[in-house]
């Protein structure tokens, strides 16, 4: 029983990781309707920035949030303004996919150039230390990540549902032409939303960096699961993506323990394919759109 409980807790903590790394992707997809294939590389940039700030300035990696989140916000806004917006009038969405894939490749190669292929280890400051609550062991850094992921999802939900700016953002997602007629500057909303999505992944980077080694390819490692989570959550539903992240985390953890650690990805993608066949709109698409962003 204790072992089962531990495996479930591990799954939920892993879900926290998946949630925080996919929230930004969901936000951008739900509102700007662009699949950002460079999302993983945004995470990678944030992790390197955290690594540099904590090693060169001797700061706690969490302190890097103050610099990394604004940095990624600006990077996201620039990506929208300079890369996506010029392609938006081109009715062909394939072009936007090529553009973000191109950006992803360029950023990986830039990282290889600057940092080499070796891994960079961010100081952990005790975040990789396990604490025990009864029979359950958890890493401090994982608990923080789970808490921040939950707070971020609730915060975004509140922002989108209850504030005037949030309502304006939802309006753009639901009916772009009508939003323009309400006096909304749509290209500005797209820019800010892309910035917010990137800022979320910047926040994720500061929490992930002390737990996982950073390398130019790290984004690719995380982003695949993030895509699964976004699709499972119903493409653009932030609450749905959070629950999707928990489900993927649980499947990963349970199958890793009870079937075999080399079967985890098989189980995750097997369940993913099964759900896609049975519910192509995603597990929570259309039903549990907490933020009604699309």
């Amino acid at each position, binding site marked *: 029983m204790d072992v089962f409980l531990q495996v479930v807790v591990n799954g939920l903590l892993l879900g926290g990781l998946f949630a925080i790394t996919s929230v930004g992707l969901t936000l951008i997809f739900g509102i700007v309707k662009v699949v950002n294939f460079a999302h993983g590389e945004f995470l990678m940039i944030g992790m390197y920035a955290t690594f540099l700030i904590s090693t060169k300035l001797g700061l706690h990696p969490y302190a890097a949030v103050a610099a990394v989140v604004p940095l990624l916000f600006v990077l996201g806004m620039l990506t929208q303004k300079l890369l996506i917006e010029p392609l938006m009038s081109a009715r062909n969405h394939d072009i936007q996919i090529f553009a973000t894939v191109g950006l992803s490749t360029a950023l990986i190669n830039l990282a290889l150039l600057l940092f080499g292929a070796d891994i960079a280890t961010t100081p952990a400051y005790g975040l990789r230390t396990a604490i025990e609550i009864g029979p359950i062991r958890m890493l401090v850094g994982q608990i923080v990540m789970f808490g921040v992921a939950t707070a971020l999802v609730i915060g975004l939900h509140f922002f989108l549902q209850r504030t005037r700016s949030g309502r304006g953002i939802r309006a753009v997602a639901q*009916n772009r032409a009508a939003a323009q007629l309400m*006096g*909304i500057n749509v290209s500005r909303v797209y820019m800010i939303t892309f910035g917010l999505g990137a800022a979320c992944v910047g926040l994720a980077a500061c929490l992930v960096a002390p737990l996982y080694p950073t390398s130019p390819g790290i984004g690719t490692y995380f982003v695949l699961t993030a895509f699964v989570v976004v699709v499972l959550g119903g493409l653009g539903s932030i609450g749905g993506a959070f629950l999707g992240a928990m489900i993927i985390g649980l499947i990963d953890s349970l199958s890793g323990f009870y079937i075999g650690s080399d079967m985890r990805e098989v189980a995750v993608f097997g369940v993913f394919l099964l759900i896609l066949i049975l519910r192509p709109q995603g597990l929570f698409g259309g039903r549990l759109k907490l933020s*009604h962003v699309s």
Partner: protein
Amino acid sequence: MLELSGIHSGYGQTTILQDVSLTVTEGEVVTIVGANGAGKTTTLRTISGLLKPSAGTIRFDGKDITKLSSHETVELGITMIPEGRQLFPDMTVRENLLMGAYRKGAQASQSQLMDEVLALFPRVEERLEQKANSLSGGEQQMVAIARGLMAKPRLLMFDEPSLGLAPIIVSQVFDVIDSIVKTGATVLIVEQNVFHTLKAADRGYVLENGEVVLTDDADALLENPHVRKAYLGI
């Protein structure tokens, strides 16, 4: 108040409007009459800044607004109630109305505007907490008009408000428009129900293939042989 002179406008390389000039004076109700595809919607879109004219100028209160985007013209008080309602489907009726008052000039008086607008639309008030996409076509049109009024418009533009509605609903929509007109609002209206619209309007423009072919007082247009034959079927 509004003055278009020599406007050429269209989509991409295709020019639809050819040398369109028209004016709307404060407190006036002006209608644009024309067949399907004549360019009526294109005219309203160009005024609101959704389309940029390739030639000509648009003035509002004497100020050149030719190059302004829609979010800027809305801020000046130019409000368009678009063809086909165009509500925010996943928002409640209340949220849709609040979106109407999104512009800075209406925001501060948002709750007062809500009371005023709901007084005009008792049916809408009953539906406030319902999702917009759960309403009938007629109810959606009422919400679209109410949302337009929430912007505290100085110039209110209607694009085919009775399109696709059942006859009973059409007359309700016209009752609402008539009552808005009675408040002294400045209105530019495009409507397939030419007879009723000319009755309510002060002046009208007849648009054919993107060109203004005729303009006169509404009463005179009602008597005009060409208008009677082509648009009133008399």
